[in-house]
């Protein structure tokens, strides 16, 4: 892991927004985010619902819903700026160099086509694999995601599979084109608790076997600790803190990250679970200054009026909070 130093994905000043009601309402779903991901590295993207995690994933694929638009910024992937590519060039990257795992395994497979058909598509369209070798490839992929007797199961249809199996098949699809990056958008949220861990282990094993980079979206910091090398914490369309897993857990600098860590349930601890007060903000009507100030226990006058800048700490940790500004000054 230490040897992989080549940058695979570099997102710079990315802004994306949704426009609704004939342009009268604009929601800034991604509000200027920056992060990098090295080859073979796993990054956790954490935050509450509606903070822009899913939009970020789709933005990497340049596939936002019809009302959404990437306003500015660059997404550098494997040495080329995705924003400069034509639609068809972009399409040939999707599925070949990057794969995605969606949230709901029950809905993400086409009910009318066999597993074979759907797993084969990326390999067929992007890598030109045909005939017998295509079948072998599908079997190999299904085996790698631990589908029992793949030669038989691949002729079946999605409705004949359990949710956990379907999600593993979605994993196989994401690997089918031989990608360098996999984006997993809350892949275990809709799975039974008993098989969540199994799926996470599978993903981590696959990641280590194939050496792909992984962007792992979740709202569960506990999973991040298990899966990831680094973390980016998102709040209201912005990354409020990022750094290595070790640093973020041992020394969270942003009050939001601190609150998230406090709200992880711990075995043996009988104290009431910590709950972050208030609601995640409505992206259409963001608070002034730091968007987190209405819920922040340390909020000051300054937080209400001015947005804090990013402060970098020497070890690659970045935090977007006035407290961090003070800390950097004093420290």
């Amino acid at each position, binding site marked *: 892991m230490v040897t992989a130093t080549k940058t695979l994905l570099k997102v710079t000043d990315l802004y994306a927004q949704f426009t609704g009601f004939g342009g009268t309402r604009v929601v800034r779903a991604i509000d200027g985010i920056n992060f990098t991901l090295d080859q073979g590295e796993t990054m956790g993207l954490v935050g509450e619902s509606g903070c822009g995690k899913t939009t970020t994933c789709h933005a990497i694929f340049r*596939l936002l819903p019809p009302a959404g638009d990437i306003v500015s910024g660059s997404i550098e992937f494997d040495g080329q700026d995705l924003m400069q590519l034509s639609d068809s060039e972009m*399409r040939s990257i999707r599925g070949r160099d990057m794969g995605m795992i*969606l949230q*709901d395994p029950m809905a*993400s497979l*086409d009910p009318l086509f066999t597993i074979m058909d759907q797993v084969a598509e990326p390999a067929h369209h*992007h890598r030109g694999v045909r005939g017998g070798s295509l079948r072998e490839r599908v079997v190999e992929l299904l085996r790698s995601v631990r589908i029992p007797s793949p030669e038989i199961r691949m002729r079946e*249809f999605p409705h004949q599979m359990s949710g956990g199996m379907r999600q593993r098949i979605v994993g196989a699809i994401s690997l089918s084109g031989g990608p360098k990056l996999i984006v997993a958008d809350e892949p275990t949220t809709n799975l039974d608790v008993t098989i969540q861990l199994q799926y996470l282990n599978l993903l981590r094993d696959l990641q280590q076997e194939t050496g792909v980079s992984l962007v792992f979206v979740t709202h569960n910091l506990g999973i991040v600790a298990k899966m990831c090398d680094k973390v980016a914490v998102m709040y209201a369309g912005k990354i409020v803190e990022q750094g290595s897993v070790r640093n973020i857990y041992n020394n969270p600098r942003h009050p939001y990250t601190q609150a998230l860590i406090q709200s992880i349930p711990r075995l043996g601890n009988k104290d009431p679970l910590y709950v972050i007060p208030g609601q995640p903000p409505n992206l259409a009507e963001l608070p002034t200054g730091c968007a987190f100030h209405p819920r922040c226990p340390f909020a000051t006058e300054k937080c209400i009026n001015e947005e804090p800048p990013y402060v970098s700490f020497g070890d690659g940790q970045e935090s977007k909070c006035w407290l961090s500004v003070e800390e950097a000054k004093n420290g």
Partner: protein
Amino acid sequence: MKTFIAKRLLSSLATLLVLSIIIFALVRASGNPAELLYEYPGAREEDIARQAAAWGLDQSWPEQYVSFVWNIARFDYGQSFQYGTSVRSLYFDRLPNSLLLAFWAFLISMAIGIPLGIMSAVKVDSLWDSVGKTFALLGLSVPSFFVALLLVLLFGVKLEWLPFLGKAEGFFDWQHLILPSLSLGWFFSGAMLRLTRSSMLEVLGSEYIKLCRLKGLPEKVVIVKHALKNSFIPVLTLAAVNLVVMINVAVVVEVVFSWPGIGRLLYDGLINRDFPLVQGVVVMAGVMIVGTNFIVDVLYGYLDPRIRLTR
């Protein structure tokens, strides 16, 4: 699949049974059906008595109902008041003409409704979509007899391009067919368009289409292979049902164009107070539509692996 078919068959039969009860009850509730003959010009006392005996009106209601259902099962709807021949032979004489008309109207409704519906959904909120939505709204709002009258007025009377009365010999007699089938297909084009559009939109918004795009499949493959196949199941279901409905609701169009189909027969029965004729055509409509629904359900089962592969 076998249990699925058996279930469907049972439910179709139940539907037919309830329908026969409704029709039977409505007729009996309105009085002695034989007395409808009173209103039939030239009917005499003994005619009424004979008709009453023929329909078994002196028996108890349950007995009457049983013989009513037995007659339906044998396609026996009695004698027409005005023609004096059996309703069955009248009906089957006219049916081919109705089939011909409905077939062409069906083709027109598919040819207009499906492509426009697909375009409308794929290019949602564009000019195509506006055209599609407007067309669908007009199809729903302009009654087919007005369309028929306008077509006659324009192409028949004013421009004198096309004949507008009756039917000539021959299957491909497009000159006599084009105006009636356009009028009949009008409403159904709008209906097909609406359904194709909404079905396509639903599928295009689904997670699996999202995943297809994330896989980097060419848009053509996404639309033609995945989206069309998924959205076509409801569309084909409606299309098949529409074909049969068109056979039976062509009344107004057949009246405008003097088309000798079963709709025209129904109209004749209606204005001449020929009750057995009306009842026969209506019951046949019910039988035909329930039967088609059953067949379509079974075909649907074969198309959809979710049904095909479960017992």
